[in-house]
């Protein structure tokens, strides 16, 4: 047993390839036979991944899903930001520069609007649920942008560690919710072309949510959505602890 565990740990990335292959196979099988192709196989596989992460988390009490089980530790490398970003960049091969240039301005507007709406929505909910100091409200609002903007803002404003933890949790909830809901909402908001995908990326902000949500909807849209989403965290880190916090302080 120990030999196997050691072996799996040493060959983590390869074990991850095999594991993801099995999850994907199950996902596509369920999509085809149980759901009659109503939900794409990629979406089911991503959802299966989240379910696996949930039960692994319950089992280990850790924060990295299946990767906290030592034989699957390689999953955090394959699913980490390096491979994710590398794969996102590669999807740009099929993207059209013309379309990107045409939508450039709309993408920029969506970035500002997305950050503002997310921050505002998160801040209002924080106030409704009993937070009254500008620092905490701003940190939670920032968490509603992405799970990176939350702690960056919290640290800059010296918010309490509970509030910072809460802002990270808010960002994680958002990322997972965007992942799951995108394929279902896509038909209603016209998310089926490069133009709307770029706006979607800017509005949703969360790179992980956007990249997974679009993968589950239509892989051809990934480069357009990811292109704008990747600027959103920077935009959030720029606006939340400065302009937005100052406005919040004025109001309160």
């Amino acid at each position, binding site marked *: 047993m120990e030999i196997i565990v050691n072996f799996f740990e040493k060959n983590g990335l390869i074990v*991850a390839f095999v*594991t*993801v292959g099995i999850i*994907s196979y199950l996902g596509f099988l369920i999509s085809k036979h149980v759901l009659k192709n109503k939900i794409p196989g*990629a979406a089911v596989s*991503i*959802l299966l*991944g*989240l*379910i696996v*992460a*949930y039960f692994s988390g*319950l089992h280990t009490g850790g*924060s*990295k899903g299946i990767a906290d089980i030592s034989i699957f530790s390689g999953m955090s490398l*394959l*699913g*980490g930001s390096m*491979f*994710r970003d*590398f*794969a996102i*960049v*590669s999807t*740009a091969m099929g993207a059209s*520069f013309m379309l*990107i240039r*045409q*939508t450039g301005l*709309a993408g920029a507007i969506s970035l500002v*609007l997305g950050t503002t*709406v997310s921050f505002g*929505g*998160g801040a209002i*909910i*924080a106030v409704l*649920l009993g937070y009254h100091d500008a620092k905490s409200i701003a940190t*939670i609002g920032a*968490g509603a942008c992405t799970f990176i903007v939350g702690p960056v803002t919290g640290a800059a404003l010296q918010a309490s560690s509970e509030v910072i933890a*809460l802002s*990270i*949790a*808010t960002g*994680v*909830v*958002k990322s*997972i*919710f965007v992942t799951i809901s995108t394929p279902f*909402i896509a038909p209603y908001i*016209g998310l089926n072309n490069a133009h709307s995908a770029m*706006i979607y990326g800017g*509005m949703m902000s969360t790179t992980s949510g956007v990249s*997974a949500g679009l*993968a589950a909807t239509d892989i051809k849209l990934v*480069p357009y959505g*990811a*292109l704008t989403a*990747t600027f959103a965290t920077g935009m959030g*880190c*720029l606006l939340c602890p400065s302009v937005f916090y100052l406005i919040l302080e004025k109001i309160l």
Partner: protein
Amino acid sequence: MVIYGVSFLGACYILGQLVGEFLAKWIGVKANVGGVGFAMLFLILAHDYFNKRKLFSAEAEKGILFWSQMYIPVIVAMSATQNVVVALDSGLLAILAGVIPVFMCFACIPLLVKLTKSPLNN
């Protein structure tokens, strides 16, 4: 050779991410600003440039296409390593603040699409 494509992709990735790091430092932000976006633009433009001059072999292209086909598996691995427990157990505030703004943003998309649609696209 396949490695030329992978290496080319890697070079675009590194250049783009570095631009993102320096841009962040320059505007005083503690995160990478659009590194992936810059990398994607570099890849699109550089690939176009080399392709027009017939300097990009089909074999090299396979090195990039492989990674774009690995995209969904990488995302599956990412989902399997998320902290789903904390997301579900973190209480009402995190769930409401994580979900409601998403709906508000979804609602803005059709509006913004309509406002920014140029006659060129129709």
